[in-house]
């Protein structure tokens, strides 16, 4: 069976959404996370080196920027994916597109 091709715009939209989502999740996974306890950031112990200066404002600010970027990217990616695959998610079997590459899949209605 010949696979129907997606329009380039839709295909790139999906690739873009997956990329946004993946980058957002990777940022979240790879960042140096500060623990939060009782609504207070726990500063990580600094490596034992003479002259080491802890700057709480910079550490907290960096964490906030990273988390904000990660959250926005992940949410934007997820919303993009939801829009891209809305027909699949809403259960319209006639489209039968694969979630990953958008290719048509077989239907059980035969």
């Amino acid at each position, binding site marked *: 069976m010949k696979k129907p091709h997606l329009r380039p715009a839709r295909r790139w939209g999906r690739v873009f959404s997956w990329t946004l989502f993946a980058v957002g999740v990777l940022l979240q996974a790879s960042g140096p996370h500060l623990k939060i306890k009782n609504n207070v950031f726990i500063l990580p112990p600094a490596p034992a080196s003479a002259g080491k200066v802890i700057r709480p404002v910079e550490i907290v600010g960096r964490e906030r920027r990273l988390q*904000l970027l990660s959250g926005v990217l992940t949410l934007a990616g997820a919303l993009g994916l939801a829009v891209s695959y809305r027909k699949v998610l809403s259960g319209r079997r006639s489209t039968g597109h694969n979630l990953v590459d958008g290719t048509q899949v077989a239907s059980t209605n035969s």
Partner: protein
Amino acid sequence: MTLRISSFVRPAKFILAVIVAALTLAVVGHATQTIVTSNSAVYTYTLNPGQTGENISPPADTPVWITADQTGTVCGCDDVGSSFMTLVNSSVDRELVWNGFESNKGGLTAGFNPTLGTHIMYIDFSHLVDLEVNNGTSFHVTNSSSNGATANGSVTMDW
């Protein structure tokens, strides 16, 4: 064959959708918690006798509320104390300026000084552990005891 593939593909699509939704909720939830948490950070210390902790540099020209608490020593003796003060890292004066209360009835503490080792505020019960000036922009915790006890505690900063 077609039926067999379809029986795998359809659940896989929804499992993938659930994974995406769960990851999104986890990431956005954590980001939200980080963003709404107040401007407070706690530094915990464990210092051997004579040891000095890391240097902490508060934000410039912003009043910082500092509460410091000694939570105990490894010797098991009672050396718990608490104290608080406001401190400014003044870029105009190029020094730390502070005002607050010493631990354990130590009275008021106030001063301004950029000199290394200047006493700022005692933290513990016995007045052996204190905050000291490191330079014009930072301070550190010092355990001056000679009884072999390791001091444990925390310094919380709100700005």
